[in-house]
């Protein structure tokens, strides 16, 4: 597919005969153009898919698909392309990689994987994971994922990612050794926790809202698309009935017979053309789905920020409370109710030694608290800076990708119109000619 990497400016798609493959290449070229160090060195493809059978973790036979990743050193001038290094990966390994990235770079919007199961299907499309069309679209999606990671200024430098591309056997151990799974558990907990931030960052709030709404809009589009595809399929197939009746009718007519026969034949071809048309539309649906899944990643970054913000606020609150306590203890006044204060009131004052030791403990605590707050503050600021950098990068990419997707959707509609009216035209000519 992306056999040669183009260094040219990405031209606006204006060739209306462009196929979906070429359109994909344009998007890939966009990513490659960003020129990360990794992509300057390597060309990455997901070239093939293959079925395998093996024993799974509970020792049962299962059939699964593996995908061939090809790595080539980037093309040098005049040189013949070197033979690629290859390795096979299955979908679950991609998932593992992605989880690792999610945990390790919580401030980055991690590119999504193609869907695990076929969603938003219209009736004919197989929801079976082993269906060849589904596998093919998944292959494309996985390649897309790898290229997105490889073209990301931060993610492309990750060692585990590099090993994923180069180390077939040892990769799994390397990932597990990073210990990311412990962080994974706490991350999951934090994402599902309910907490309220006192001073939310308006930018992140707006972003989360945008992301939720985008999710809803794209879901709706995909649902409508499935219904429309179903209806259109029905229309074309009923025309197939026309074809049949025309042919039968031609058998009883003497003069019009040939014309009807030909027209009937073309009507059948017209009816059959719907499969290709809907398959091409599937490509657009996949582009929408990618951004649908991106909204989850965006949401995840926003939530992580909220968590950090919350922790900062908690630490600050905690510190303030301790300072308050110290002041009370030092001055002897009880402004805030505390059990200690009450008991000392009830059971008599404590001794000066006790008071001293308590003050010292508080002082220690306060110092630690101040450290914590400083750390959390830095963490928060760092997070915001890094995240916002990535968000700008994401927005730019989104605008470019979706604009191109809409354009190629229009091109596809045009080519469909041309294809279809050609069929009808031929039917008409049949009727004129043979009578």
């Amino acid at each position: 597919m992306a056999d040669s990497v183009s260094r040219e400016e990405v031209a606006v798609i204006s060739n209306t005969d462009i196929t979906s493959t070429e359109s994909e290449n344009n998007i890939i070229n966009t990513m490659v153009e960003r020129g990360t160090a990794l992509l300057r060195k390597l060309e990455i493809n997901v070239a093939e898919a293959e079925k395998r059978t093996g024993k799974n973790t509970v020792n049962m036979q299962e059939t699964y698909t593996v995908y061939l990743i090809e790595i080539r050193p980037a093309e040098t001038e005049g040189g013949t392309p070197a033979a690629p290094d290859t390795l096979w990966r299955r979908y679950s390994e991609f998932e593992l990689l992605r989880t690792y990235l999610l945990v390790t770079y919580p401030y980055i919007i991690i590119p999504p994987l193609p869907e695990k199961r076929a969603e938003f299907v219209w009736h004919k499309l197989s929801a079976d994971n082993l269906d060849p069309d589904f596998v093919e679209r998944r292959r494309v999606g996985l390649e897309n994922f790898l290229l997105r990671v490889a073209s990301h200024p931060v993610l492309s430098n990750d060692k585990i990612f590099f090993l994923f591309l180069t180390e077939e056997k040892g990769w799994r151990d390397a990932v597990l050794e990073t210990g990311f799974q412990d962080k994974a558990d706490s991350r999951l907990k934090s994402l599902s926790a309910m907490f309220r931030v006192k001073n939310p960052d308006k930018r992140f709030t707006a972003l989360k809202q945008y992301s939720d709404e985008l999710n809803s809009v794209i879901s709706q589009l995909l649902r409508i698309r499935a219904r429309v595809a179903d209806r259109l399929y029905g229309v074309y197939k009923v025309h197939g009935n026309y074809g049949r009746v025309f042919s039968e009718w031609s058998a009883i007519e003497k003069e019009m017979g040939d014309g009807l026969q030909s027209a009937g034949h073309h009507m059948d071809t017209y009816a059959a053309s719907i499969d290709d048309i809907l398959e091409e539309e599937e490509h657009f649906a996949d582009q929408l789905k990618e951004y649908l899944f991106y909204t989850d990643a965006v949401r995840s970054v926003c939530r992580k920020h909220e968590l950090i913000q919350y922790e900062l606020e908690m630490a600050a609150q905690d510190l303030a409370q301790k300072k308050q306590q110290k002041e009370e203890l030092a001055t002897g006044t009880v402004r805030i109710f505390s059990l200690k204060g009450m008991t000392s009131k009830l059971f008599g004052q404590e001794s000066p030694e006790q008071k001293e030791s308590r003050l010292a403990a508080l002082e220690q605590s306060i110092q630690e608290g101040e450290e914590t707050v400083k750390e959390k503050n830095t963490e928060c600021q760092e997070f915001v800076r890094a995240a916002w950098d990535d968000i700008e990068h994401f927005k730019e990419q989104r605008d470019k990708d979706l604009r191109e997707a809409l354009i190629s959707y229009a091109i596809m509609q045009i080519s469909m119109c041309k294809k279809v009216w050609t069929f009808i035209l031929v039917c008409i000519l049949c009727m004129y000619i043979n009578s």
Partner: protein
Amino acid sequence: MSGHTVPADFSEHMLDLDEDEDLEVFTKNTSLPDGSPLPNSPSSMVNQYRLEDDDEGKEDANTKDIFVTVDHPESQVTAIETFILYRVVTRTTRSDFDSSEYEVRRRYQDFVWLRSKLEEKHPTLIVHPLPEKFVMKGMVERFNDDFIETRRRALHRFLNKISEHPILSYSQHFQVFLTAQDLAPHRKQGPGFLSRMGETVRAVANSVRGLRSRPEEFAVMQEYVDDFSNKMCCMDKVSQRIIKEQREYVDDLKQYSPTYARWGELEEELTEPLKGVASCVVQCSKEAEEHIQHLSEVLVPALHEYVLCAETLKAVMRRRDNIQAEFEAKNEALLTRKAEQEALQEEVDVLADRMEQANNSLKGDWVRWQHSMKTDLRSAFISAAEKNVEYYEKCLAVWESFLVSQRAEAGGGQEDVA
């Protein structure tokens, strides 16, 4: 077709178009097999062929000497009932008409009267059918505008078919129908209900006895009529189904545009192309609705008309059979009964003549009807297909203008549009 310039091998070329690649080649060809350039617009290509076709039609139009129109349906309310009156305008140069222009008002029942008179006088001629009485199944209200318009068109076609018929158009009843201000006195004359009953009884009696044998050509005809009737019913059903499916498709398609518009509001850079797509969908839906409208106004009535024609043909074949049966019955009587030979012989001769006349009428009219049927149906299908092509042309234009606007936005990378 006379004068056609497309060579015979064109059809073979078309039958090879099974693979997509071949089709691509076809569309990328810059000329037709006969050398003329492939036009960018498919409609213009069709028109090219259409013009040649029309020339044939024009010849007939030049020899036409009577023109009838049915229009201006108006509701009439009396104490007893409400009905629709249609205006029937006739323009003619025929000498057997006193004037050259007539305008009368007729209701549906008047048309029914005319048709039954024509069938009575010419039992084995193929008299074009009338639109149905009142269709319950579609839940159509009798005075619904669409129903009235559909009926008006069908009545117009009916009178035109009669006026184009070489025999029927000279019928006295036809003339009276077109010219008499008040049809009521004429409707009371002539063999009425009772005589029609008598004929029916005789026909039933004869058919019980059954036909000795049908002449070969009429047997073939009968078979054709049965098959044709079948095919027309299928066509009718398929066409109605297509319209239904397309209506549902358009209803769902329309839902795209508010969703795209909603998305446009969420975005900044993408607002413009998203709203563009929303607008494209709206326009394409409109075109689709127009296309569906045309189908239901042109193709469906044409097909339905020939479903009714098929029934007419069956009735004609039955009547012809009855005439033959009557003759055979009398003839048998002549052969078996020894008394009344002379009287019977006379009757047999009369019936024999009647049968021969009936058969000849039918044979002659059959050829005329077949030709007319082919023209009508071909024209209906071609018209529907043309409208279909137009629909795709318009949609294509909608999306192309969207692309142009996007290119203008981007400003860079100019390449020629293929």
